[in-house]
């Protein structure tokens, strides 16, 4: 009974005899409690539990990287010797077969035959010393290494070949400042350029992004924030649509915008086709990123009493920002590089046109495609030049995505860390100033009222009883 009275006394200025029903008094109590929020835990717990406390293992540090995989690769001298021995034997034998034995020719055939012989020699050499499983291990290791090398080689060849062939057209400055309106099929490379295609690509991708980014992120938010059978259904459809053939996207816009609504082929129609193609890609990767946002962040926000909308706006989206940006940039790279939706919907032009709503337009991949269909060497050179410009654009977007992204949700870059620490320091300062101001007003009010401030341990005692 006495306990409840003291609690009441501290919290509400009830008309009790010992608490003066003064306004100034109430302010001090409330002010006091606010200034010292983390009150001491009840002191009676301390001595009894400290002796018998169970030693808990430290909680696993969730920010630490998972256990690293041990490297089990060891390069032994005998492996290296076998490798080069087999290689030398294979090349020598292939050369003998090609020049002396069989009527074979061509560098590609040479490499294929030499590689097959190399595997045979290598397996034989290993089997001289090692048992069956070890032989299989070494041969598969050689095979896997060479396949990966082949893949990287293919990438390098695709890029280098395009750049080398594009070097004919690229040094001409007019290539970037003119359109093809004045250039005939037989004109040299010093006439005509691809300005119209660059501008067309930029206009189309801008319109496509203006539509697909809000819609795509909204849809991804729907998939993660409003779960249910309907969201699952939408997710299934979207996932199936990620591999929608791009020409079907073009055909769809052609069927609706051009045939049904009667508009001409234009940059806007092409942008719509790119949007249809990009939308599932953006939604899918944004969905993945949003699902990675840690649940405890959202729950903390809910526990502080914020609504779902505030949580999405202030917690989920900022946390996933770098991942979402990466998703959008990679979707943009796909959208920029697609030819077939634009082929059906943009029409084709050799003239500069910056108006997406009227007249045909052309994009970089479409320009490449139309250039290389011509038999003229200068046109083909222009095609390769356009392809290089396109590749550089895609590469820039890709590097941008790597710079921004590549970080899990909630992980900050050094600069973001600094900014957040500065904001936190500013907050601390703000609190200190506010506390100071409140204390000084309170004490001045007290001085005016002529009442002693409440003694320091009164609120503490109160809360101790509450907890106990």
């Amino acid at each position: 009974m006495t306990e409840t009275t003291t609690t009441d006394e501290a919290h509400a200025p009830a008309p009790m005899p010992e608490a003066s029903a003064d306004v100034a008094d109430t302010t001090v109590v409330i002010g006091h409690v606010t200034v010292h929020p983390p009150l001491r835990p009840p002191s009676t717990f301390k001595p009894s539990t400290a002796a018998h406390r169970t030693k808990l293992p430290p909680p696993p540090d969730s920010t630490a990287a998972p256990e690293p995989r041990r490297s089990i690769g060891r390069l032994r001298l005998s492996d290296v010797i076998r490798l080069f021995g087999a290689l030398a034997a294979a090349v020598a034998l292939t050369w003998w077969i090609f020049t002396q034995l069989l009527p074979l020719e061509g560098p590609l055939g040479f490499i294929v035959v030499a590689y097959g012989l190399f595997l045979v020699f290598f397996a034989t050499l290993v089997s001289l010393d090692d048992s069956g499983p070890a032989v299989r291990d070494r041969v598969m290791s050689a095979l896997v290494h060479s396949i990966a090398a082949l893949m990287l080689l293919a990438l390098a060849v695709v890029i280098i070949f395009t750049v080398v062939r594009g070097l004919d057209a690229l040094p001409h400055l007019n290539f970037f400042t003119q359109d093809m309106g004045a250039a005939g099929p037989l004109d040299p490379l010093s006439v005509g350029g691809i300005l119209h295609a660059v501008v067309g690509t930029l206009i189309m991708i801008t319109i496509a992004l203006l539509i697909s980014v809000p819609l795509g992120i909204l849809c991804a938010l729907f998939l993660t924030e409003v779960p249910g059978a309907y969201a699952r259904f939408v997710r299934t459809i979207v996932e199936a649509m990620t591999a929608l053939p791009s020409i079907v996207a073009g055909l769809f816009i052609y069927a609706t915008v051009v045939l049904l609504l009667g508009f001409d082929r234009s940059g806007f129609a092409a942008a719509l086709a790119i949007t249809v193609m990009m939308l599932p890609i953006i939604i899918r990767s944004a969905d993945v990123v949003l699902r990675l946002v840690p649940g405890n962040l959202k729950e903390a926000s809910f526990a502080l009493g914020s609504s779902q909308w505030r949580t999405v706006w202030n917690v989920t989206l900022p946390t996933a920002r770098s991942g979402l940006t990466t998703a959008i940039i990679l979707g943009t790279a796909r959208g920029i590089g697609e030819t077939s939706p634009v082929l059906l919907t943009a029409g084709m032009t050799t003239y500069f046109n910056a108006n997406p709503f009227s007249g045909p337009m052309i994009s970089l991949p479409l320009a490449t495609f139309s250039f290389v269909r011509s038999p003229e060497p200068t046109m083909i050179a222009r095609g390769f030049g356009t392809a290089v410009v396109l590749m550089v654009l895609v590469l820039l977007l890709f590097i941008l995505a790597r710079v921004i992204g590549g970080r899990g949700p909630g992980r900050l870059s050094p600069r973001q860390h600094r900014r957040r620490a500065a904001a936190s320091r500013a907050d601390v300062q703000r609190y200190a100033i506010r506390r100071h101001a409140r204390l000084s007003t309170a004490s001045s009010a007290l001085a005016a009222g002529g009442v002693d401030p409440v003694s320091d341990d009164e609120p503490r005692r109160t809360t101790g009883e509450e907890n106990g």
Partner: protein
Amino acid sequence: MTALPEVRTADQDAPRSLAARPAGADRTFRGIARGGGTGVLLIMTLVGGFLLYQGYRALETRGFEFVTTEAWDPNSGEFGIAAVMAGTFFIALTAITIAIPLSIGTALYISEYAPPGIQRSLIALVDLMAAIPSVVYGLWGLFLLQPVILPLSQWIATYFGWIPILSVSDFDPQDPLASPTVFTSSTFIAGIVVALMISPIASSIMREVFSQAPLGEREGALALGSTRWGMIRAVVFPFGMGGMIGGMMLGLGRALGETIAVYLIISPVFVIQPRVLEKGANSISALIALRYSEASAFEMSALMAAGLALFLVTLVVNFGASMVIARSRSGAGAEG
């Protein structure tokens, strides 16, 4: 008599529902989000719906013969997708046959063999390869690969010509003056180019799944004395099987729909031509790109119907792929 509260045992005690009725701004937010989802769903359904609507005229005229006719001559009423659909599959299957070892090997290398220091760069390179526009691959195939690959085609046709799909009808291995032009513009060359385009996508899905194979099982296999390859066969492959199949099917979906690279390389024929090394191939997307510009209204309808067929086929393949990935033990992290 005192009324005792009903005693609940542990299995009766169901968790109470904590769902709160959203109010105010939340309801608006949920409504807008739901609207966004519905809008996207609508667009995606409209793609199929409009293709059907526009292609219905052609489908109605031809009926079931649309699927069985090889020729494509809509203006005389004799047309069907048998040849182009078969050609699409021939190119896609050739591509998949080449892409399977390529992508599995690359994925294995990155997840199992590569030094940890260069793994991230390798992943970035493979992703970059997936981002290269298809028209660039087409240029590469047309101008660089085709001249280089002809002797290999000739060699295969000479020594493996007894296998029906590798035979070439107008090619006599005994004739030293035989022109290699019968090997140009073939399904084989288009397949190689498409294989290079789909391998990075398939391989990045596989790599993701391989690297999730549990560490304990890996080290258990190694501790039992297995070699690295033995560990891969015993732990990594069984664990990643779903991801491997799913990745390949996603790649197949991409291969079926590839347009520009195929269009640049093949020379279209309208018969079912399963001899992959021989000149002449076709695919639905290349047919649409080839014919749309000077199509009459009726041919446009026929092209829409062909597009619808391609759309349905890729949809089925993709559904299959996502189902396989989702069902596999490792599917949780396989996001392509």
